[in-house]
């Protein structure tokens, strides 16, 4: 079994994080995040490490980790496609996009392709209702105004190992009448 540990520099950094808050419980999210950046996931053993480091109950850390889809509770593909299926996206075709991606990659939401390239998640609101339907890639770039052609293009780009470019959203100017 893989053993998970923080090194000295990381532990020092964690001390600094803890010092920002009144108690160590408040540090659970940034430390989980640190762990995910280091190990690529927060599997139960990593959660245990975080709990031990912060002297918190394991159940509490698990509760926090399981609340957010952004924490990966198991090993994920290189690119995680978080397709928003919350209200606004749902109304604008979020599920159509999700099902299209599922079909295209041959996996269901919550699964990872065999080559370890892609995972799909159906997630709650990412705060981009104005650009629905949308998805986020591996907790990073937002891809907005999804349609089938755009999904094809994004997946092609990712297959080449490139992240899609950041899309600046133009301010809508009220039409002059």
């Amino acid at each position, binding site marked *: 079994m893989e053993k998970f540990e923080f090194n000295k520099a990381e532990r020092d950094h964690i001390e600094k994080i803890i010092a920002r808050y009144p108690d160590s419980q408040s540090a659970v999210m940034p430390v989980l995040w640190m762990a995910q950046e280091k190990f690529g996931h927060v599997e139960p053993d990593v959660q*245990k490490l975080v709990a031990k480091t912060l002297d918190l*109950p394991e*159940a*509490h850390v*698990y*509760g926090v980790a399981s*609340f957010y889809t952004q924490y990966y509770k198991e090993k994920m593909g290189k690119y995680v496609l978080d397709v928003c299926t919350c209200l606004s996206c749902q109304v604008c075709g979020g599920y159509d996009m999700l099902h299209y991606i599922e079909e295209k990659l041959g996996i269901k939401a919550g699964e990872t392709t065999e080559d370890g390239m892609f995972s799909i998640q159906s997630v709650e609101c990412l705060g981009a209702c104005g650009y629905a339907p949308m998805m986020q890639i591996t907790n990073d770039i937002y891809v907005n105004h999804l349609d089938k052609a755009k999904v094809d293009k994004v997946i092609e780009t990712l297959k080449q190992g490139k992240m899609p470019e950041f899309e600046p959203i133009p301010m809508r100017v009220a039409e002059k009448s």
Partner: protein
Amino acid sequence: MPEIFIDDQRFEFEGNPKVLQFVLDQGLELPFFCYHPSLSIPANCRQCFVEAGTPVFNRETNSYELDENGDRVIRWFPKLMTSCSLEATDGMVIKTHRSSEKVARGQKDTLEFILINHPLDCPICDQAGECPLQIQTYKYGPEGSRFEHKKVHKPKRVQLGPNVVLDAERCINCTRCVRFTDEISKSKQLSIVSRGDKNYPLTAPGTEFDDPYSLNTVDICPVGALTSTDFRFKARVWEMNQTPGIDMTGSKGTNIDLWVRNNLVMRITPRYNPDVNDHWMPDEARKDYRRINENRISRPSIKLDGEQVKTSWNNAMLTFNEETGKVKPSEILVIGSPHASVEDNYVLSKFFNRLGVSDVHFANDIEKGRGDDFLITDDRAPNANGCRFLGFTEHDPAALGKAVSASGVKMVVILGDDLIGRGAFPAEAVQGKFTVFMGTNNCDTSNAANLVVPITCSAEHAASYINEAGRIQRTIPAKETVYTSRRLNLEMSLGRLDHFATKFDNWESDDNKVDCIPAWEFLIRLVQETGGDLTYTSSREIMDEIASAIDTFSGVSFERMDDEYGIPLKKENQPQGKTV
């Protein structure tokens, strides 16, 4: 004194009570799920909504502002308030569902939301009948749901730990169980996991809910989400009758309720006593119902040619009197029991005092390291202090073993204590000595005894026990013996089945009654057999006599024990333990 107006009725209050607790303390009703008086207040179920307002106080005139009718002007909180977390302030005005349409509507709508994903499987749910969600839905809920979509499905039958099963779909996320493990048992093993409509309480991956107090979460769960592995599907709540009792597995004196159906104790739950166990009890103690139901000694037996045979009560009494007549008082070793009641021990000592035996002995039952700082004690016996306060001589089990083996001892009388089974002495130690065992369950000691007298256990008699802190509390008969009847003993509780079932109903049974009598009753019958004058008609009478005869017990009576949740015996009256 500060005042508060609830539904236009004026109350005075002291300190800083929360509105919900204050309302409940007045005997009024307000629905709630997540609030628990012994836990922190998260206000997350939103069921205890009230309208609340405070009077407008004018600092310049230093008086309350009045409207044209001369009534105080009330500044209302803009939205409904959760009364559980709202602190009462002077002059506060509260409107509950009794006087406010808005509150009634709020409660109804909250319930509709709570019920959106709740499976309506009450007919197969163990909680049905004692379910706050079920009761409050009847009282305050909507008649039906407007939600026509598929309910969210979550894990069912999750074995959280050795004693608790989770049905996540039934959970309403009140977090009582999580707060219990965080704040009371401090194992912190539970947490609410996942998010939104998918969340439910769970342990961390790879760990199990093995908290020694885990079953308390089942008691406080306001729905059927957490159920007891052991009690699951055994009995419906309304089939059982509920009788207060005292825990027999430790010296804490935990207050319990015994739930009886057809004279079998189906389960044991904690009973509130702020001075002893609050609302809680350990899991281990709940398994004590087995001792009450199973492997009981029924009818006396006598050892003939090395084999025990059942015999009549008459024969048992004749044999007993015959044997005591054969030996000198100094050759009888009388052993009382920290597992038996004060009354039984007292009458035992009185009986043998009459015969000229001055000393009664007992062996403490202490397992070092068993206890914790909460409700589990090192002492495994409920009444060691009872024996001490009656002036019995205390021994370590091994020391008592030596006394039993002494050659001068010809007759050994043991009251309700499996001394051989718990290793005080081997069965050979009593060989050749006439051994009388008055006990409740078959055990190594009863097997070795020449005369076995079946006596009632804590679930079958009214008797008192003194806990480690010197608090005397009493039991009430919960279960009938062959010689008692629910309908005749007015102290016994009658459940629905007891009330309404007849002998011809197939769910009613006369079985499970043990042929036994209280130890004191056997002893006074022995006296009466020989024309003596020892008479008691009830254990109540015995306690009255103890109270007048022994300083430690002065002022103690069953009535006071009932009224005051047990009585702490006065420290200055408590004797120093006599040890050898």
